[in-house]
């Protein structure tokens, strides 16, 4: 582990690389915190800025916002233009947002722990509450999220939990414990999938063992690894994109799933979602404004527009995701027993996954060890 500080005295061989990187470094990790110069810059935001001079570019998961959002935003906010870029995972969004240079993105949709990492890297603009009056629509619980108490740099868009999505007609016992997934009974052998995204790959074993979802203790991670390694021969595969299809086709009978991704609205009514008794996480997808944005007033106006109950309720009505917006959820008719029928206080029992900084590499290694295991 030989580490040497990078100085000019290093051999000339590194100078060329250094020069190239100097260009790249402007978009890289910065030591600037969100409290210092950024706050000063943010103070210069004009509440009555002429939005017709500003254009918006957002990055969001495909299908996560209404298709007609740009047209509606342009009509309502009178911004010059609005473009939507898509990402399929948080990781892809992070690559886009942390790559050297200006990403051109004004508002990004990422999960809470990624917002936390972006903020720690000094890439986020602090949220100006006075430019987002609709923040008042949020549940009080939504302002107490552990990764960003008081919504200082992120505004929650959707929230939910992770559990077991299962085929009611193919299981011999309704799953109620992570162990049903980790030690599948004979009738579910090789008909079970786990998520491949590393923190969620580890989540069931972590909760089954009674640890914190944010543990970075080596001995606990070692026990998690043993449990996951013993499970692997009984798995159909690792999957966090098509597990719903596998369940619908009957190829899988139980899968680890985010609640909103569990196809409980399947017309045949064969699919159910179980919250394991050992507890789970509370995941939050958020909206953040990039410090590099040149359209910060428009970015705040966009978030305010999305928090409008009529707009925000779209996610609950169309993609079956709970939204942390009290006024929006009150507009939605929620059938009893629906995935949407969970009170915010119950949701807050779940433990938020936070970014672990350098310790997150332990989870990458764990994930590699499990998937590489023969």
């Amino acid at each position, binding site marked *: *582990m*030989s*580490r*040497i*500080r*990078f100085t000019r005295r*290093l051999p000339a061989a*590194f100078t*060329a*690389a*250094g020069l*190239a*990187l100097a260009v*790249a*470094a402007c978009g*890289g*990790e910065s030591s600037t915190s969100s409290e210092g110069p950024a706050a000063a810059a943010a103070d210069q935001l004009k509440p009555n800025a002429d939005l017709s001079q500003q254009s918006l570019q957002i990055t969001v998961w495909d299908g996560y916002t209404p298709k007609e959002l740009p047209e509606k935003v342009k009509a309502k906010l009178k911004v010059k233009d609005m473009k939507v870029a898509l990402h399929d*995972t948080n*990781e*892809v969004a*992070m*690559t886009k947002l*942390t790559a050297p240079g200006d990403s051109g993105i004004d508002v990004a949709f990422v999960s809470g722990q990624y917002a936390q*990492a*972006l903020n*720690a*890297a000094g890439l986020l603009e602090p949220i100006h509450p006075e430019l987002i009056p609709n923040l008042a629509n949020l549940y009080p619980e939504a302002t107490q999220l552990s990764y960003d108490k008081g919504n200082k740099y992120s505004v929650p868009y959707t929230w939910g939990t992770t559990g077991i999505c299962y085929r009611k007609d193919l299981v011999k016992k309704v799953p109620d414990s992570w162990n049903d997934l980790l030690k599948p009974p004979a009738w579910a052998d*090789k008909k079970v*999938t786990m998520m*491949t*995204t*590393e923190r969620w790959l580890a989540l069931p074993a972590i909760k089954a063992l009674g640890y914190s979802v944010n543990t970075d203790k080596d001995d606990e991670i070692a026990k998690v690894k043993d449990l996951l390694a013993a499970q*692997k021969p009984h*798995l*159909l*595969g*690792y*999957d966090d994109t098509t597990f719903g299809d596998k369940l619908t*086709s*009957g*190829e899988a009978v139980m899968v680890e799933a985010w609640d909103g991704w569990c196809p409980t609205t399947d017309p045949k009514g064969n699919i159910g979602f179980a919250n394991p008794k050992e507890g789970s996480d509370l995941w939050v997808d958020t909206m953040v404004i990039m410090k590099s944005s040149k359209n910060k007033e428009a970015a705040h106006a966009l978030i305010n527009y999305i928090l409008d109950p009529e707009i925000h309720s779209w996610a609950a009505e169309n993609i079956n995701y709970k939204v942390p917006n009290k006024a929006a959820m009150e507009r939605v008719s929620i059938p009893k027993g629906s995935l949407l029928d969970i009170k915010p206080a119950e949701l807050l029992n779940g433990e938020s996954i936070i*970014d672990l*900084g*350098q310790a*997150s*590499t332990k989870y*990458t*290694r764990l*994930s*590699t*060890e499990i*998937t*590489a295991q*023969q």
Partner: protein
Amino acid sequence: MKSEVKARPASRGRRLGAFVFLSPGVTYLIVLMLVPLALVLSNTVFQRGRFGGVVYEFTTENFERLIDPLYLGVVGVSLKLATLTTLIALLIGYPTAYLIAQLPPKWKTVALVAIVLPFWTNFIIRVYAWIILLSGPGVINSLLGTDLELLYKQGTIVTGLLYSYLPLMVLPLYSAIERLDPQLREASANLGASAFTTFRKVTLPLTVPGVMTGCLFVFVPSFGNFVIPEILGGSKSIMVGNLIRDQFLKARDWPFGSALALALIAVLIVLLLVQARVTRRA
């Protein structure tokens, strides 16, 4: 002296012409290949930031991690699967290319188009098509009335790689076999060699460059592939490509991802050099 004086303008003209014609290609190579490659490779000596990204502090740790048994194991699996794919592709590809080369010209064209035809469809779609065939409730199990586990195994990954890259074996082999002078084989037969001896002593040695090129064309993309292990292997086995992808996208550890990429490039350069040497000798 006179001739030298005369030659100089012509040589300058040639150089200028070469410069003009080569500059778009060279610029393309520099801007889109060498510069990004240099940027990626320069990351290998720096550290991962606490929340991802790159911290410009020198370290050799990324290279030390390359010899970690965990990652060497993944390289081993990649080598095994890519080698197996290449060998099977050669076993299927050689007779296929040989037969195509013997066809009448009209049928040759038809056969070659048939070989290239799959490339007209998107790679991902073709790989997903295998799920429809091999999944539990898929076409094969439905037709056979069985419940066979055909998907999410290393064998399925090899099948996917083979299906995707077999044309890259057949085409260079066909080209090498097609170029063979038929009189050489006739001479061998006239001198009393059996068909097998003619193949072993004449055809095969003369088509070694095609064999090498085909093997390289199949091995290289198979070795670095990450889509097929994920889709057809159910992520239960990972290859070097997955490892590199995960470092960049999941771990946000660009320095180590770059070191892995550098190692992969080094392996491929060695293979290219071997291929060039064998081709030159043949």
